[in-house]
């Protein structure tokens, strides 16, 4: 029972991570290339983070019911900010001389993005992804309230029946999960940093 919740929680985190990555990158790249919408994008992802998690999940539940999907959408919306912001920052900080060289050599915008800009910005973007993952582990706990399952359910039940040992185990599982994700991704992050510049 508890193990199943743990697996469910990891699923929540991983599936949300994929969507956060895709949506966040797209928004970040759009924001980088079109200065006019950049402010709007950043404002939206910023505001999303100020909404209390429970309220946000509640609103999404109106549309998707008490399901796994609701929780995933909630986590994605909530963890977009670091990905979008780091994508824009990472792309912005590239030496203008490199961009000029790429343009002057006849790279189109898309080629420049794929071959030069994205690889150079990737270490910063990856840091954003790491923050998003670790955040999403915590947010996933609220998923139980809207029927998403995961370790939140375990904790909920444990509180209700006042089972301290289960409560402790579930909390410990969450902490370890965060630490492991953080540790592994930090290792990758360091390698990226070492490889560039």
């Amino acid at each position: 029972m508890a193990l199943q919740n743990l697996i469910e929680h990891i699923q929540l985190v991983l599936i949300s991570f994929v969507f956060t990555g895709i949506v966040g990158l797209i928004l970040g790249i759009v924001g980088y290339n079109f200065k006019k919408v950049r402010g709007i994008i950043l404002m939206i992802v910023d505001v999303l983070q100020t909404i209390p998690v429970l309220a946000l999940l509640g609103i999404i539940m109106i549309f998707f019911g008490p399901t796994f999907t609701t929780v995933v959408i909630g986590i994605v919306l909530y963890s977009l900010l670091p990905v979008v912001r780091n994508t824009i920052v990472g792309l912005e900080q590239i030496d203008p001389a490199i961009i000029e060289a790429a343009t002057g050599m006849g790279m189109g915008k898309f080629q420049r993005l794929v071959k030069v800009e994205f690889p150079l910005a990737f270490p910063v973007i990856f840091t954003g992804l790491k923050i998003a993952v670790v955040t999403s582990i915590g947010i996933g706990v609220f998923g139980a309230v809207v029927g998403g399952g995961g370790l939140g359910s375990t904790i909920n039940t444990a509180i209700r029946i006042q089972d301290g040992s289960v409560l402790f185990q579930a909390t410990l599982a969450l902490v370890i999960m965060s630490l492991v994700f953080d540790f592994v991704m930090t290792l990758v992050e360091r390698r990226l940093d070492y490889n560039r510049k």
Partner: protein
Amino acid sequence: MIEFKHVKKAYQDNVVIEDLSLTINDGEFICIIGPSGCGKTTTLKMINRLNKINDGEILIDGENINNIEVNKLRQGIGYVIQQIGLFPNMTVAQNISVVPNLLKWGKEKIERRVKELLKLINMPYDEYAHKYPRELSGGQQQRIGVLRALAANPPIILMDEPFGALDPITRDILQDELKSIHKQLKKTIVFVTHDMDEAVKMADRIIFMESGNILQFATPEELLNKPASPIIKEFLGKISYSHNANDLTCADVMRTKVFTVNRKRKTLECINMMNQRDIGSVIVVDDDDKFMGIVTIETIKEKGVPGALIEEILDRDVKTVLINHNAKDAFDEFYDSKLDYLTVLNRNKTVAGIITKTSMAKALASLVWGENNDS
């Protein structure tokens, strides 16, 4: 052939180039020079459309560049910038292959080309092809920058102060290399600089610009002998030396491009280096770049044992002069000494340059020429 026909460029209301017409022939080495803000870089960047022109037209081999798809146009024109702009995420070989890749050359053809190009500047393929730009010195990076521009064999190369950020010695070497590349490959090179020495050394013809106008478009000799305007004269003044012969110091008559070796070098290495550069002796410095002495190829042949360090056999008892020493006194000492050259030191004992017969003659010639020019 590159032709500008009544080209105009303005940023909003600010007209930087009013009406520019000029023709550059195939295979020419053209330097554009002038005071900062004269429009030289603006002009250069019009040719690959990094700057859009507001009026007039630019033709390459008779075709209006606006009728060519912009990326196609740029892929057919080499481009080198002062900040070098190598891609840090790519190796040397990958950097050089960028344009060939855009042009969809085959893998083997690209590799062959990379090898061929690295050979051109004596950087062994096996040693350098897989290094990243951050592992190279500034001079090496810009060499790769030049190769990257040459990679797809474009007939035209644009260079925007390519050697401006390099130290004087490296700059001098790269200038020589570029000159020899130009001789071998017969590219049309348009080269922006603010350094008259560089322009005179490199160019077949020099365009002197001021406030968006061409003041003179002539060969270096013509420009030096018959400057068309007082502004050019003033600009040239900066390269002639001090006008009073008695005020000359060693700094005025020495050449700064000196080859030094560290004391820990092996004798055999030194012989190789001397052979490569065709010189008969080297200046040996310690780990702080301070002057220690001189070793001639004869000494090495006499006393050198395989594997010995250069510091063991160097001649420490050689005449040197300080950089602010009067040039005439140095000249006398130099002549009496029967040395090939006289080493000039900075106050902290590092090597500032050497006085050779050539460097002396050059300095004196420019002094004489400068006086002629004033009268």
